[in-house]
């Protein structure tokens, strides 16, 4: 958990957390994705239709966008449980703007700015006051969603302009949705930032040892603040997409997204203790979660039962390398 200095061994490679010498995390995820894909296409004749595959992407793009920024945050040793509440608050603000006749560009700007503002608020509380992020964001989670509840009450905002629908429902090329395109572009940007810049290197370093970083001249507080802002920003963008896709705002919008985004991050091989992980893993995990929920949906499995599979997948995938290593060393349990 965040802020808890865990006594732990120095990882052999910064970006490979739980991997044994035999396989890399990403390879394991690819195998799982291919398996689920194969099972799905055998299980349902409707699965391999291009439009149905395109629908599949809507299952994960919004949460995936949040998960990208969340991955950086968790690598740095912090966490943000308030992302779904930020989505709700940003969506509520957009709804209010619609009531006073705002146009599409204003709506998008409001969504993004509210998200960024909420993220900055989290970041200030965590970095300025030195508070544990898991607690701060449990508080702001209630606070942000509470404000949405106060404003909305039990009603819903509707009447979004027609041009606004493009973000959540539009296609950039044939079956290739705008949401998927945005997710892939964002994934590329985050991959570059995390794995190819000094900023990304500092994020890893902070997750491994914040105190040593401070002494080597890394501005730990500022970087963490930026990461909270990024997570808020991505939540704001996700809010624009969800609101546009649903065409309405309710106080319960995006309920439970924070846990799904964190599940994606952890499933993607990011260490919850910080210091290790990769964007490729998170993207693959997002795809896998989309595949699982969509495939089970085609088989008429109720949503709540799908969550069993997601939960099992999370635990099994995390446990697998550990069990494997123990078996090889002949000292299980």
């Amino acid at each position: 958990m965040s802020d808890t200095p865990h006594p732990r061994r120095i990882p052999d490679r910064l970006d490979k957390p739980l991997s044994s010498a035999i396989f890399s995390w990403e390879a394991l995820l690819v195998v799982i994705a291919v398996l689920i894909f194969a099972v799905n296409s055998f299980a349902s004749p409707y699965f391999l239709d291009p439009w149905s595959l395109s629908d599949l992407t809507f299952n994960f793009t919004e949460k995936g966008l949040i998960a990208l920024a969340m991955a950086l945050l968790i690598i740095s040793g912090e966490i943000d449980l308030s992302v779904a509440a930020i989505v709700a608050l940003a969506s509520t603000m957009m709804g209010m703007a619609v009531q006073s006749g705002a146009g599409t560009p204003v709506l998008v700007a409001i969504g993004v700015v509210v998200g960024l503002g909420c993220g900055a608020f989290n970041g200030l509380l965590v970095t300025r006051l030195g508070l544990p992020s898991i607690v701060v964001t449990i508080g702001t989670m209630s606070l942000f969603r509470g404000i949405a509840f106060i404003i909305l009450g039990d009603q819903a905002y509707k009447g979004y302009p027609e041009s606004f629908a493009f973000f959540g429902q539009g296609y950039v090329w044939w079956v290739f949705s705008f949401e998927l395109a945005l997710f892939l572009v964002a994934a590329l940007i985050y991959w570059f930032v995390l794995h190819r810049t000094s900023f990304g290197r500092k994020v890893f370093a902070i997750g491994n040892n914040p105190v040593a970083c401070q002494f080597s001249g890394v501005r730990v507080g500022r970087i963490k603040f930026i990461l909270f802002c990024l997570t808020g920003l991505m939540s704001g963008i996700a809010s624009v997409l969800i609101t546009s896709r649903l065409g309405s705002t309710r106080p319960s919008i995006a309920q439970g997204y924070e846990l799904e985004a964190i599940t994606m991050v952890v499933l993607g091989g990011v260490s919850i203790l910080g210091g290790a992980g990769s964007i490729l893993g998170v993207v693959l995990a997002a795809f896998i979660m989309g595949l699982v929920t969509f495939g089970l949906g085609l088989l008429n499995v109720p949503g709540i039962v799908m969550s069993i599979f997601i939960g099992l997948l999370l635990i099994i995938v995390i446990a697998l390398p550990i069990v494997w290593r123990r078996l090889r060393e002949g000292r299980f349990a």
Partner: protein
Amino acid sequence: MKNFLKYREIWLLAGIAVLIGLISTRFPGFADPANLRQVFNDTSILMILALGQMVVILTRSIDLSMASNLCFTGMVVAMLNAAHPAIPIPVLIAIALFVGLVLGAINGFLVWRLNIPSIVVTLGTLTIYRGATFVVSGGAWVNADQMSPDFINFQRAAFLGLPVLSWIAIIVIALFFLVMTRTQIGRSIHAIGVNPTASVYAGIDVGRTKFIVFCISGMIGGLAGYLWISRYVIASVEVANGYELNIIAACVIGGISIAGGIGSVGGAVLGALFLGIISNALPVINISPFWQMAISGSAIILAVVLNARGERRQGRIILRKAEAA
């Protein structure tokens, strides 16, 4: 006097007194003993759950699956009662404790034997247990008319002027107080949170102790499952959805450090009472219940900010009295 004021519980108690005072200015009947008894009874389940969560948090772990455990166990007990109304309530409670224990032991085993961080394990079991509730029940609800009168009335029965539910809460609080202050396991739980490495050298089996705390929180989740279902007389998959964060919030307001090692039974109880008073007071003083989330969110943030200084003195808690002497 100065030492006295050091205790966080005193400040919390004062905060609660001020809160009750403020509410009384708007609604004079609130501070009435009969009403306060009602508030205590309404908050009993949250207090019990907060205590279970407290021991987990003290060891630097977290149990996100408590509300799902509550939902699953409650459904199992309610279905048993609907199918076999003859089963006596104490047996049902024992079954609830056992089912909860099994679910908690699964969490504990994964944390202990496989060394998976508890936040990941319980994030997984959170969804699994709730999904399992759907599988067990087939998505059906158990309604009030399917439950036996005994099942519903047991916790409402008055005993020495208090409902049985309140007595259960009092017994659980007393048990936790004894275990945390008078037993070796209570001391080990504190010690692990303060310094896991030193605990190992002191001969404490850290993994096994973590397993035990998850078993405790599981049993508490199971007990709360029966209490919740028989109180709100409906068992469905949606029961206590998202409640895990309320439980953690109660702990946080109660001054239990999420970084482990710091916290007390009194703190957890008072933290839960604080949230309970807010949710009880809003309707009677004519504030829309929609304000509840925002108010408890602000309370959490405020509590964390106020606690921040205390958290920096990590690792001193056990020795605090010795130091003062």
